[in-house]
């Protein structure tokens, strides 16, 4: 056996020795250094002009109102050209910034905005002048009009009881949490390729043709389709006006520019912005600019979860890249610089959560503008190209936390691509995450997607997949705390955090259960009760959202919306597929707890139920031996069929219920395990659990093992995941899986090969998602003690990478406590 000599990942070397290689990236670092660790500020302009317009258009079709509002924003909002930047298009002022969407939460700005600079997680600054605008111009209009107020007002009492912990519906109960009221929509990917190929003039002409073809004696055509198509025409104007204003500003700036080189750059920028996105892109530079305008304008339109994603960038940009390279007008280096120009501007747009619950869900200024690379073509061939490699190389050389890089893996992924993925993972900053075609493509196809579209999916948000012209479901989805169900089982429907309030079902004193069957039956009753309430809650959300949200810009880019003349936020769109999900929180916490009781109380009879409950009530103080026995019972994540079988059954019963609900609601209701950072706040309402977890600490995340419970290495973690899945059922969505490896474990060329093999096996096992942290525990501990020296340390959280020092102490602790797998 070898010695465990200390071995650092490349990232750890950089952080410890402070030797970031900046060579060849003067422009990029000049921009980044100005802004990187700034506290972001709020820019009020989008909210201000949006509100001004909405106040003028009440009573009209919502899509049309939204289009008019976007046009007003496009005309009025300040446009900026960042010094040194090659790309134009910001949604707010220089530096790190967040923008407001008062249509979501304008009603409680008074309570919250003044707290933003002071809040512990993700603070924002706001100037006094802007504060006045918010409180005097913006907030008053939205009082009584927001989705969140509507939802809070109509939610039936029995559902409200598991949803909110206050009258206003601002504080979540963290039992059955809705996420629809703190963002406009679920994560989303627009069809960028369409814009690059056709341009907005052509898309607008398409709308005009459809408008001309309407029969205005037909009620539907007159009252629904006409205003929709008017909106499409207006929103195309809006984005073109906005781009044109950037062209004008670039010319103006060029006039005043003394440096002849920069002057040329600005003039070229002006020409490009004159041309795109109105017209088709003619080269790589125009394609990247056009794409950037589209994603930034999408952000002005709505606050989609995780921020608008970038789609299959290596696919739709490749023709332009290849052509320019062949013509000799672009070098590999130029292309990389241009993309990195995009990354540094992306890093400045911060996904601002006003809602305190929303803020708990994604710490460290998280946003996930996923860039998808690799995968298969619509005809099922391997899609890897030179740009796929360029993205990886850029990430290794310039490891910024944005964009989130996602590699699609399939059974024929080339060896070179996997090798470079492994090298990038080994760098240690958590990129790329891996998404498995072998799981996703057949699942989407069997749920109704045409095969070529399923093969062409883009990664969206943290671990989801989107087909930009087929997906039509946009509601933020429900998060269910099943560790709470477990607690209700142990306390007859109550939770210690909520005192005597009956939150769940009264399943009786747990000591009355005679055998495992009765006990597990009672758990299932609690589980199903939360699930039912969750589905009902989600349906209310689905019904109310179209009354409050519209997205004309996203709709004009969606084939089905244009065919149906319906906004993407509509409840049902012909030909669309609605992939909805519900989130399972605390999977391993629940599974391990049930297994511990099954084994120790009912089978081995080493403990009585009373002892377990007493120990839980005391948070194990004075009951350490009992806690140890519980912790040493079989745990999920060790490839132990005893416990994995329980996990599999819970997954199955949840899917059976989901299947029934899917039929009722006409949408696919799929089981997902992707907590982002919410396993921390959801843990804060759950007292001690029978797996030995202490009260109020984080729940297990995603389908990862409980903290420190996986003792048999990463192969066992992957296998537990595999054995607890129900491949014969289809009401399933993403399962997030974190694996932490020590750098030594994958050291050298041999280590890279073994990492490649591990990824191949992940693909064989048809697991949905996998991500790695390659970091030494002691580095994390050092960063916790001495943040100033570890400012640049990136870690993988849950579908995204973030600076470790931006995380709350709770989450830092959570990451440190994840088992680090070293080789044996």
């Amino acid at each position, binding site marked *: 056996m070898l010695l465990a000599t200390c071995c650092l990942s490349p990232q750890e070397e950089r952080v410890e020795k402070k030797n970031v290689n900046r060579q060849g990236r003067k422009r990029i670092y000049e921009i980044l250094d100005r802004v990187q660790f700034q506290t972001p500020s709020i820019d009020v302009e989008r909210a201000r002009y949006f509100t001004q317009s909405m106040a003028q258009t009440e009573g009209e079709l919502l899509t049309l109102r939204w289009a008019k509002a976007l046009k007003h924003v496009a005309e009025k909002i300040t446009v900026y050209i960042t010094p040194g930047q090659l790309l134009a298009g910001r949604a707010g002022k220089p530096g790190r910034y967040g923008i407001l969407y008062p249509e979501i939460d304008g009603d409680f700005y008074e309570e919250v905005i003044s707290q933003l600079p002071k809040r512990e997680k993700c603070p924002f600054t706001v100037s006094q002048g802007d504060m006045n605008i918010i409180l005097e111009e913006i907030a008053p209009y939205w009082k009584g009009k927001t989705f969140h107020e509507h939802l809070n007002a109509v939610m039936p009492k029995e559902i409200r009881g598991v949803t909110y912990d206050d009258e206003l519906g601002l504080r979540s109960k963290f039992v059955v949490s809705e996420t629809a009221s703190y963002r406009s929509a679920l994560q989303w990917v627009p069809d960028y390729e369409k814009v690059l190929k056709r341009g907005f003039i052509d898309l607008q002409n398409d709308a005009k043709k459809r408008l001309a073809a309407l029969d205005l004696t037909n009620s539907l055509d007159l009252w629904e389709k006409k205003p929709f198509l008017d909106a499409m025409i207006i929103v195309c104007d809006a984005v073109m006006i906005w781009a044109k204003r950037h062209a004008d500003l670039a010319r103006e700036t060029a006039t005043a520019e003394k440096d002849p080189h920069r002057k040329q750059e600005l003039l070229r920028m002006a020409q490009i912005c004159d041309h795109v996105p109105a017209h088709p892109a003619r080269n790589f530079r125009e394609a990247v600019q056009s794409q950037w305008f589209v994603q930034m304008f999408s952000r002005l339109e709505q606050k989609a979860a995780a921020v608008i994603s970038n789609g299959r960038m290596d696919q739709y940009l490749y023709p332009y890249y290849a052509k320019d390279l062949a013509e000799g007008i672009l070098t590999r280096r130029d292309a990389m610089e241009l993309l990195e120009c995009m990354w540094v501007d992306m890093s400045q747009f911060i996904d601002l959560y006003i809602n305190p619950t929303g803020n708990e869900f994604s710490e460290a200024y998280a946003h996930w503008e996923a860039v998808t690379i690799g995968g298969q073509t619509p005809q099922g061939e391997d899609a890897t190209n030179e740009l796929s490699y360029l993205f990886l190389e850029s990430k290794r050389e310039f490891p910024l936390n944005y964009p989130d890089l996602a590699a699609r893996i399939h059974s024929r992924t080339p060896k070179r691509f996997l090798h470079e993925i492994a090298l990038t993972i080994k760098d240690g900053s958590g990129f790329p995450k891996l998404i498995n075609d072998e799981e996703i493509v057949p699942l989407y196809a069997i749920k109704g997607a045409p095969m070529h579209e399923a093969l062409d999916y883009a990664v969206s948000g943290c671990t989801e997949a989107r087909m930009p012209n087929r997906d039509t479901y946009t509601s933020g989805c429900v998060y269910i705390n099943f560790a709470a169900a477990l607690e209700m089982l142990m306390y007859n429907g109550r939770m210690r955090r909520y005192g005597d309030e009956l939150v769940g079902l009264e399943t009786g004193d747990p000591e009355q259960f005679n055998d495992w069957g009765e006990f597990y039956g009672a758990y299932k009753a609690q589980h199903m009760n939360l699930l039912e309430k969750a589905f009902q809650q989600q349906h209310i959300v689905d019904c109310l959202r179209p009354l409050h949200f519209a997205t004309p810009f996203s709709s004009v880019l969606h084939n089905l919306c244009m065919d149906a003349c319906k906004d993407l936020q509509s409840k049902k769109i012909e030909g669309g597929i609605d992939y909805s999900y519900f989130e399972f929180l605390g999977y391993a916490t629940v599974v391990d707890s049930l297994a511990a009781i099954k084994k120790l109380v009912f089978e081995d009879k080493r403990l009585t139920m009373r002892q377990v409950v007493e120990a839980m009530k005391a948070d194990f103080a004075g009951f350490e*031996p009992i806690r*140890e026995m519980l912790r040493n019972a079989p745990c999920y994540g060790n490839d132990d069929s005893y416990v994995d079988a329980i996990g599999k059954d819970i997954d199955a019963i949840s899917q059976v219920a989901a299947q029934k609900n899917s039929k009722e609601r006409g949408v696919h209701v799929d089981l997902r395990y992707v907590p982002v950072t919410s396993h921390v706040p959801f843990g804060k309402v759950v007292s001690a659990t029978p797996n030995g977890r202490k009260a109020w600490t984080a729940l297990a995340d995603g389908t990862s093992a409980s903290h420190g419970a996986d003792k048999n*290495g990463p192969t066992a973690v992957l296998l537990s995941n595999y054995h607890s899945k129900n491949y014969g059922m289809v009401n399933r969505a993403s399962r997030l899986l974190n694996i932490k490896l020590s750098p030594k474990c994958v050291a050298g060329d041999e280590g890279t090969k*073994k990492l490649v093999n*591990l990824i191949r096996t992940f693909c064989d096992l048809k697991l949905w998602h996998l991500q790695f942290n390659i970091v030494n525990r002691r580095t994390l501990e050092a960063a916790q003690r001495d943040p100033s020296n570890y400012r640049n340390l990136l870690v993988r959280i849950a579908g995204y990478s973030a600076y470790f020092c931006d995380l709350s102490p709770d989450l830092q602790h959570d990451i440190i406590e994840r088992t680090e797998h070293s080789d*044996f």
Partner: protein
Amino acid sequence: MSDEKQTGIVFNIQKFSMHDGQGIRTMVFLKGCPLRCPWCSNPESQRHEPERAFNPTRCLTAQVCGRCLEACPNAALRVIEGGIVFDRSRCTRCGLCVSVCPTGAQSVYGQVMSVGDILNQVERDDVFYNRSDGGMTLSGGEPLAQPDFALALLREARRRRIHTTIETCGHCPTALLDRACRHLDALIFDIKSLDSEKHKRLVGVGNELILRNIEHVWTHFPLLPVLIRTPVVPGFNDTNGEILNIRKMLPQRTNVCFEPLTYHRMGQPKYAYLGRDYPLEGIEADEGFMKRLRERLKILDP
């Protein structure tokens, strides 16, 4: 008896081994060893029979727990100055204390397992072996110290199409090694020193049999991939001359590799759990020497 029913004493099965043979492997550690290397990092592997161990750092203490004190029928466990002390001379290895211990502080190294049970566990990682060309590595102790059991494990692994490797100290009857090699896909073989006197002084036996055995492998299994390993132990064999001489005596074949192992003390706590003293107290590896040594070896391995 069929191979699957054969039993032996195993003290650990470890998944995801990355450095003991090709690919991702599962290590099966067999108990018992004919040598007594003072640097041994698996002291629990040395004796053939299962051994009781007590790890005081995992113990919740007598005040908090004390279950083992109550369970022991022979008063082998007592409290002295607040801490639990284990008196091996009174222990009959009945296992009662182990069964009540909540933390695993009281444990037994080694349990009887059948070949079938072991291979069933090894086979669970088959999907990883497929992609990495990994498989099972028998280690110890000295795996060939349980000859019938080790051979049955290798035969059964072969039958199940699992890649086989053993890590051996080489001190075993030549005929036995020969039989094992017939079921091996690769061999990892330790050569600790070419100086038999020194060898005997430190590990208890001379090196004649070991060297004869490796010669046998060169002659009779010329195609078998072999990794020769030498633990470089400060004060024992840590000179360039000694290590390079081992390297130089190996045949120049592409299927023969050499690897010096840096001395480490990861096994030290286990000596205490077993109630033994660590023989090499205070010795540290010389990282600089190892680095230079590897560079010299690189020149020999073009």
